């Protein structure tokens, strides 16, 4: 295998870890409450803009931007849950789709209105330079994003499977009434899940902001990437999202390199459709 190919695959894995991070947020609320957040990609976009504002106003890098973006988005997630999701969850499906779609438009075009439609980007040298390992060249910003995203996604999985908070959340996902009889408040657990899910998007956004283009409509593409990841990994499964995220990162990079950059999105969408049509339970089943 040529070095270029290895380089492309490593790049895909690093980006894929970030995909896995924000997709695990989507899969969490999806598996728990059976509601799809069509604004999920726009949450990631907001995370990118928070990091950008932190840089332009305070000159802070990801050390300041990433925690702040996580916090801002987690708060937004909880607010959105109490103001909107809690009520539309009980409504008809059209209302669920419209509610989160409306939220997506509201966020996307508020940012558009405020910052304009121009492509923004962070300075190249905000995180270190480029590392070289055995002939491979890896930008520090991508390495940081990939490693942090991987660790946080694994942490999220441990949180869900090894802690009492995680058990409570799974109990609510399984059976709300039974959970309530055991003294667990579904409302609180679901609000926490929204906080975690949105916080994950904030962190992911701040991490990719260092090397990705920043534009209000980026959420549209990233949202579809999240859907693909979740459907590939199985709805409600964080490990599934991790494997699928890495896989999609690699497929995207490889098809961009082998077929051409303009076709990489098409490849991912077609893969998504094939999975929905032929294997809707995903690669790794259910939560």
């Amino acid at each position, binding site marked *: 295998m040529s070095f270029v190919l290895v380089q492309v695959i490593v790049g895909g894995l690093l980006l894929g870890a970030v995909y896995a991070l924000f997709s695990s947020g989507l899969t969490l609320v999806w598996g728990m409450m059976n509601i799809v957040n069509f604004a999920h990609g726009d949450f990631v976009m907001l995370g990118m803009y928070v990091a950008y504002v932190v840089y332009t106003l305070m000159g802070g890098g990801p050390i300041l931007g990433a925690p702040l973006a996580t916090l801002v988005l987690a708060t937004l997630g909880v607010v959105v849950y109490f103001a909107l999701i809690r009520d539309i969850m009980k409504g008809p*499906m059209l209302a*669920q789709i419209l509610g989160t779609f*409306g*939220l997506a438009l509201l966020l996307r075009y508020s940012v558009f209105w405020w910052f304009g439609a121009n492509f923004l980007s962070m300075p190249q040298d905000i995180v270190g330079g480029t590392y070289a390992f055995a002939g491979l060249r890896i930008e520090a910003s991508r390495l940081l994003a990939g490693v942090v995203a991987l660790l946080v996604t694994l942490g999220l999985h441990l949180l869900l499977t090894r802690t009492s908070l995680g058990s409570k959340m799974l109990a609510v996902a399984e059976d709300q009434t039974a959970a309530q009889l055991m003294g667990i408040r579904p409302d609180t657990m679901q609000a926490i899940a929204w906080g975690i899910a949105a916080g994950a998007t904030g962190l992911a956004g701040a991490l990719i902001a260092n090397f990705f283009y920043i534009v209000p409509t980026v959420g549209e593409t990233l949202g579809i990437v999240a*859907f693909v990841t979740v459907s590939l990994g199985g709805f409600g499964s964080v490990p599934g999202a991790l494997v699928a995220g890495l896989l999609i990162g690699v497929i995207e990079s490889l098809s961009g390199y082998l077929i051409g950059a303009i076709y990489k999105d098409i490849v991912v*969408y077609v893969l998504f459709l094939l999975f*929905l049509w032929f294997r*809707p339970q995903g690669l790794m089943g259910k939560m």
Partner: protein
Amino acid sequence: MRRWIWLSVVAAFAIAYPLLLSSPFQQRLGALVLLYAIAASAWNIVGGYAGQVSVGHVVFFGCGAYAAMGSYAKFGLSPLFGIPGGIVLAVGLAAIIGVPTLRLSGHYFSMATIAVAETMRLIVTNTEWLGAAVGLSGPTVPRNIFDLSFLSSLPYYYLFLAVLVITLLVTWWMTSSRMGFYLRAIRDSERAARSLGAPASRTKLYAYMLSAALTSVAGALYAMMFGFVDPESGLGILISVKILIMAALGGAGLLFGPLVGAAILVPLEEVSNSWLGGKGAGLTFVVYGAIIVLIARFQPGGLLSLFTGRSKPNKDAGAGHAP
């Protein structure tokens, strides 16, 4: 009886509107309201009556728009000849997409339609023969009346009005036919409908194809009025979203819901665009978003349901079961 009085008042107003409010801006506004009402009514057949929330309807809109402009740009024919071509294309595509996609329920169906629409947009954007990112143009100077290229919006207004009336008649005929009963049964509970012997898959597919055909006509009319089509205006996901929102705001699954929604949102968009200029484009969609969130939160049946007393549509309308 009261219904007929209301209906004749609305019809009389619709016919007299461009004569009463005759400035070019007002006539154009009227034509646009009717155009979006056609598209939203077409969406309503599958999204409202059948309860399958398609977010990718712009694909069919694009079929019509590209067929109309293509028949001029590629073959030198009147864009009118593109309409039947667009319908055939849209119905064929609906059959291909529909068979595997309509098996999915709830959110899964919506997401699959988004993916189909975005894939189509990307493919067309990279197809040189279809004008790639620049798109196709219609006749700049009309050769004869069949080019349907007018400076005034008045002829478009009456053309669109006629098509809207046909669309509403088709919808009304469908709802009162056997198919309409099947669709309502499927929307309320697909499993129950199936177990009582309603051919659910076939009925949904027919509704999807009918809706696709009418949407493609709307697309063709749109391209004729504006004289061009490009991937954003013919296949952009925002067109789908606008169509869907208009139907939902007025009342999905109600005959006149889409018309009411279009009559509110189109003037809102046009006025805010003309007042705020380029900056308005962003703000318009902020307002759109806020309106949808409020509708979803407080009046999910749409505005018209305030009057029909059906304030909450069926709760279990396919609410996200695994596909």
